[in-house]
C-alpha cells in the first residue's frame, strides 16, 4: 500500500515537473473603432476569455489618452474553470476638448491576470495582460487619409493584386484618389512602378484602389513605396512584402453524392502555374481524429499536368466507421520533392461532406445577375411611362370628344 502511494506521489511530482505550466488569457474584440461625434456617449461590449478553463482572478484597468472618458462597470473579476468567457461593458463619454485635436485618440482596457503568490507572499514568473483598444477618429477639417497596402497572390510567374485601402478621415469628400506603387528589391533597386485605378471617397468613407502586377522577379522580400494622391494632396508610406514561388495551386475540392459509411469520391482541382509540364503529381489527404492522430491517409493516382493548365486528381475515402463531426485535415499535392499544402476542416454529416479552407475561388465578374435596385428602378420607369402614356392618351381622347359639344353650343347661340 505504502509502495503504491509512493509511486503515485513520484508520478505526480514527475508530471508537475515535466508537463509545461500554461498561463493563457484572451480578450475580444481586440479593437473597437468609433467615429467622433460631439457629446458621444456609448456603451461598448467586450469579452474576457478563459482559454485554459482555470480558476483565475482578473483585474480590469483603463489607460491611454482617453482614460478619463472611459468608465468600467467592474474592476476585479473571478473566473471558474467552467467559465470559458465573461462579457463586460464599459461606458465611453467623449470630451469636447478632442474636437479641436484631429486624428486618432485611444483608450486601452487592460485585462491582467493576477498572478498567484508563492508561500512567501511574493509573485514569481512572467505575467500576461491583454488589451482591448478603443480607437476614436476625430475628422480633420479638410482632406486627410489613412492608407495601407495588401498584396494578394504574390507568387512568381503569376499576377498579383495590390490593394491600397484608403479611408477618408476628413470632413470633406475626396474627388479623386489614386496611388503609385514603386517596388524595390532589398538592395534598393526599383523593379516596377504600378499605378492603381481612381476612386472618389466621401467624407468618413473607405474605398480600395487596386493594381495588377505580372510578377517576373525572383521570390524573396521586397519593399513597396506607396504614394496616395488625393485631389491636390498626397501621402506616402512603405510596406515590406514577400513573393513566393508556388508552382502548383489547389483550386477546389468537390464531393458529390456523399453518404456516410460509403466510399466518397473527392475531386481535387489543381492548377499548374509553371510554364513546364509537372510530372507524377498526386494528392495526399490526411484526416485527423480528435486526438490529432491520422485516421485516414488518402492518396490519388499520379497524373502529369501540362504547363499552365488545370487537372482534377481523384482520391477515394472509405467512410465506414467514421462518425459525424468536424475533423481537421491536411491536403498535400506532391510533385517531385516539393509539395503544396493546405489545412482543411472536414464537416462530416450523414449525407454531406463540407470541406472548408479551399472551397472558394476568385473568378472574374459577370455571372452574378442584375441588382435588385436596378430591377426596381426599371419597374418604376415602366410604370411611369405607362401612366404618362395613359395620361397623354386620355387627355387627347377627352379633348377630341369635347370639341363637337363646344361647336354645338356656338350654333345654338
Amino acid at each position, binding site marked *: 500500500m505504502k509502495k503504491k502511494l509512493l509511486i503515485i506521489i513520484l508520478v505526480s511530482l514527475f508530471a508537475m515537473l515535466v508537463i509545461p505550466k500554461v498561463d493563457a488569457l484572451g480578450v475580444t*474584440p481586440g479593437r473597437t473603432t468609433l467615429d467622433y461625434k460631439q457629446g458621444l456617449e456609448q456603451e461598448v461590449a467586450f469579452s474576457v476569455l478563459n482559454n485554459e478553463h482555470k480558476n483565475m482572478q482578473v483585474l480590469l484597468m483603463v489607460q491611454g489618452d482617453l482614460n478619463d472618458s472611459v468608465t468600467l462597470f467592474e474592476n476585479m473579476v473571478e473566473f471558474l474553470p467552467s467559465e470559458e468567457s465573461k462579457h463586460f461593458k464599459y461606458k465611453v463619454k467623449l470630451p469636447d476638448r478632442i474636437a479641436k485635436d484631429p486624428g486618432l485618440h485611444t483608450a486601452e482596457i487592460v485585462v491582467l491576470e493576477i498572478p498567484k503568490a508563492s508561500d512567501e507572499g511574493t509573485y514569481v514568473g512572467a505575467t500576461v495582460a*491583454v488589451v482591448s483598444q478603443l480607437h476614436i477618429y476625430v475628422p480633420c477639417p479638410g482632406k486627410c487619409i489613412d492608407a495601407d497596402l495588401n498584396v494578394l497572390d504574390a507568387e512568381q510567374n503569376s499576377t498579383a493584386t495590390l490593394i491600397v485601402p484608403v479611408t477618408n478621415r476628413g470632413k470633406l469628400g475626396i474627388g479623386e484618389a489614386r496611388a503609385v506603387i514603386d517596388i524595390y528589391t532589398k538592395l534598393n533597386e526599383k523593379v516596377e512602378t504600378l499605378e492603381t485605378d481612381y476612386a472618389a471617397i466621401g467624407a468618413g468613407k473607405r474605398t480600395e484602389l487596386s493594381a495588377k502586377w505580372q510578377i517576373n522577379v525572383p521570390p524573396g522580400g521586397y519593399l513597396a513605396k506607396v504614394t496616395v494622391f488625393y485631389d491636390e494632396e498626397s501621402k506616402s508610406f512603405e510596406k515590406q512584402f514577400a513573393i513566393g514561388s508556388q508552382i502548383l495551386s489547389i483550386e477546389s475540392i468537390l464531393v458529390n453524392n456523399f453518404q456516410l459509411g460509403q466510399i466518397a469520391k473527392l475531386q481535387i482541382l489543381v492548377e499548374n502555374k509553371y510554364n513546364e509540364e509537372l510530372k507524377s503529381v498526386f494528392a495526399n489527404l490526411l484526416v485527423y481524429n480528435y486526438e490529432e492522430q491520422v485516421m485516414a491517409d488518402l492518396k490519388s493516382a499520379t497524373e502529369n499536368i501540362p504547363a499552365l493548365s488545370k487537372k482534377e486528381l481523384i482520391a477515394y475515402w472509405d467512410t465506414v466507421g467514421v462518425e459525424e463531426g468536424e475533423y481537421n485535415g491536411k491536403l498535400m499535392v506532391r510533385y517531385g520533392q516539393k509539395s503544396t499544402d493546405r489545412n482543411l476542416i472536414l464537416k462530416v454529416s450523414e449525407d454531406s461532406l463540407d470541406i472548408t479552407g479551399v472551397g472558394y475561388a476568385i473568378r472574374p465578374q459577370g455571372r452574378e445577375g442584375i441588382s435588385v435596385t436596378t430591377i426596381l428602378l426599371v419597374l418604376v420607369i415602366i410604370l411611369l411611362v405607362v401612366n404618362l402614356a395613359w395620361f397623354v392618351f386620355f387627355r387627347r381622347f377627352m379633348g377630341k370628344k369635347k370639341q363637337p359639344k363646344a361647336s354645338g353650343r356656338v350654333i345654338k347661340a
Partner: protein
Amino acid sequence: MNKHIKIIMIQVIFLVLVFSILYFLYPRTNVEVEGNLVNFRSVNANVIIISESPDFSNPRYLDLAEGKNASINLKPGAYYWKAGNNLIQGWRRAFKIDSEVGMEIKKEENESELVNIGNVKINVTKSKEGTMIGYIILEPNQSEEIEDSGKYTGRQE
C-alpha cells in the same frame, strides 16, 4: 371610368406578378460567422460577392457548390456581401469578424515560450517594475522564447 379601373387593375396585376417573380428568383442566403470561419447557406444563389468596402471595390467571388453551401476563412474586420445567381443580385448585407487578442505562456523547467493564440498580429510589450524594456511582434500561432519574469502586455498591431 371603367377603363381607368381596368388600367389600374392591369398595373396591380403587373406589380404582383413582378414581385412574385422577384420573390422566387431572389438569391436567398443566410450567413453564420463562427470565429474566422464564415458559412453561407443558400437556396438559389450561385455566387457570393464579398468586399471589405461598401462600394464593393475589389470583391471576392465565392462560388457556391452544388450543395449551395460555401465557407471561407477571413481575417478580422467588417465585410459587405451580396448573393447572386444568373438573374438577380441581392441587396448588400454586412457581417463582422471580431479580432481576438490572446496570449499563452508555456512554462517548462528551463524555458518559457510566449504564443499568440489570438487571430490577429499582436505587439507585445515587456515591462519590469512599470518600465517598458522591449517588445515582440507575433503573428497568429507564432511563438517566441521569453524570460520567465516581468509583465507581457499584448495589443492588436
